[in-house]
């Protein structure tokens, strides 16, 4: 493959991820339906996770050996280790993403439950309607 093409694709991915962040933030802030807000939030989480994976990306150069980044020796020498480092990507972002995905699961589960409870109490998941009844409640409390 051409190196220019790879660079172009890399750029395209980065820009589209930024675009995704913008769209999902817009969705969380401006949608009035709580379920749609939740969907936008999960899109945002996934975009950030994708972005993190992208940081560990290693640019392929012509002449680089195309082999999977696996150590085949049980007792590697410094020579094989150096070659392995040449081939492998940065593993730390993947560890970050694993942690963030698990945390995201907990948060998403909580948000789903709270939406369920909101719909029990208010018989709606529209934040505008909930906000309207809240203003009435606050007013009654203060007077």
């Amino acid at each position: 493959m051409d190196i220019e093409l790879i660079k172009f694709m890399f750029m395209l991915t980065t820009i589209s991820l930024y675009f995704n962040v913008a769209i999902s933030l817009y969705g969380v802030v401006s949608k009035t339906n709580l379920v749609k807000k939740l969907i936008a939030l999960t899109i945002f989480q996934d975009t950030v996770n994708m972005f993190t994976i992208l940081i560990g990306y290693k640019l392929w150069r012509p002449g680089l050996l195309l082999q999977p980044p696996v150590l085949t020796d049980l007792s590697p020498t410094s020579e094989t280790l150096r070659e392995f480092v040449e081939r492998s990507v940065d593993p730390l972002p993947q560890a970050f993403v694993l942690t963030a995905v698990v945390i995201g699961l907990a948060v998403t589960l909580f948000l789903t439950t709270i939406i369920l409870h909101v719909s029990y109490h208010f018989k709606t998941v529209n934040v505008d309607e909930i906000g309207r009844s809240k203003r009435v409640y606050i007013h009654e409390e203060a007077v």
Partner: protein
Amino acid sequence: MNELSVGLVTVVPVLAAFILPVLTLKFRSRALYATITTATTFFTVVLTLINLLEVMKGNILTYSFGGWPPPLGIVYVVDSLNGILGFLAATLFFFSSLYTYWYFNKIESGYEWLSTLTLLLLAGVLGCLYTGDLFNFFVMLEVLSVSSYALVAFFRRRKWAVEASMAYSFIGALATMLFFFGVIFIYASFGTVNIADLIVKTHQDPQLASKYLEAWSGKCVGEWCYGNVFISSALAVALMLWALNFEAGVFPNNYWMPSAYAESPTPVSALFAGIVDKVGTYGVVRLFITLFTAYSAVLAFPLWGVAFRDLILIVLSFLGLVTGYLGALLMFPQKNVKRLLTYSTISHIGIIFTSFGALISRVPLSASAEALSGILLHMITHAIGEFTLFLGLGTLSIVVGSTNLTKMQGVGSKYPLITAPIIIGFLSLLGVVPLAGFFSKFVMFTALMKAGLPLHAISIVIISGISALGYFKVIYTLVVGRGSEEGGARERLLIPTSILLILATSLLVLGVMIAQGAIINELMNHAEDLLSIDGLSKYVNSVSELSKILGGS
């Protein structure tokens, strides 16, 4: 060195929190859960006290999890700033769990989950305070926020508790995710998330260099590490600051606080106002006095004629002013007593943020150190004062059966031993002389004066004056107002009364001790140490030493 008292601080509450749900299969006794929570929190109090005593001697404690040498693994670092706050947090959690002996008899069900979530909250708070790793800060922030979302929605049969939790959790989830985004930018450009290693890389000062840390994560030259450091740091600070401001409740992000604090159970709202909002403030302080300091070139590029770091601090102090005035003005009309206390919390957070204006680089070190010790002292006095008030007024509102002030008229004269600590708490928050709250405000006032920001300094006084209206309204209603006489027999409130008396006495004793001058000098020395480049070098060296021992030279 690997200090076990640092490492166990988060492990023990998490373990206890995981054991508690298993116990629910067999045991239903309310006292058992209160006892387990109290025992666990007492253990953390002991651990944090050991750390505090060691830190006050000027040492820095470290603990590396799993024996990984620092820039690779997670490391906890305790210096005087987080040592003091950690002890404060553990103590407040201890008192809150003592309070649950009484409180659990007042709720129908769910007491076991209240214990579990409180322990998780404790782990989150202490983890956020003690960690020396930005990614771990994010993880602990999530532990803290998920447990606090659940605690706000604790009374899930109450409509408005669920609504408050919803309002908090949606934007909270967004904010913490943005914090993660910021951490990713830091990692992409610096190649590390360890705070000590980041100090080395943001400063590039020969005094701060550490060959043991560099051996793992490389060396930075100029603005180029693994990426452009200047741009990515500015971006990361922007993203992380929003999350921290959201947790602290600074002006545009404090809309969730009144509902969330008012609807959560009493011991929990006391903890929220006492220590949880301080975590966000601590994060901001740590970001600007340890990571991106005045000595670092990373955030020093000029924007509108001011260095970018100074511009952020100026904006933060301005936002603090707005928050302070807003909280003080909105406090007076409130009828719900917990909502009123929340607005008081907001105004005090505003005062703390106002003092950030004295941390900018053109202010001399002595004035900055005074401002930092004022910030730290106000965190302590406000935490104790607001905690006392939430517990005291929460207890009275449970006795009366309503948080509405008009229904609480005259309860105070019925329970004088609860009302006295409440009045002391209010006076301390207001800043009346022999009490601790006065001295913290006074230190911030003089620091802002020395820093050449007289308007900010005078605003602290004006904000206190405005909030006096709200405070005296509550005191007046409690003591002078005529209540309904048929109220029935007096309840026995032995546990809440004794806790409140201890807290009020501590406010008084702290005030007298500060008046003698010893504490203030001690704090000032530590603040100067935190702000100076020698202090930074001490921080780096302690982590570097750990790296040397664990990683081999």
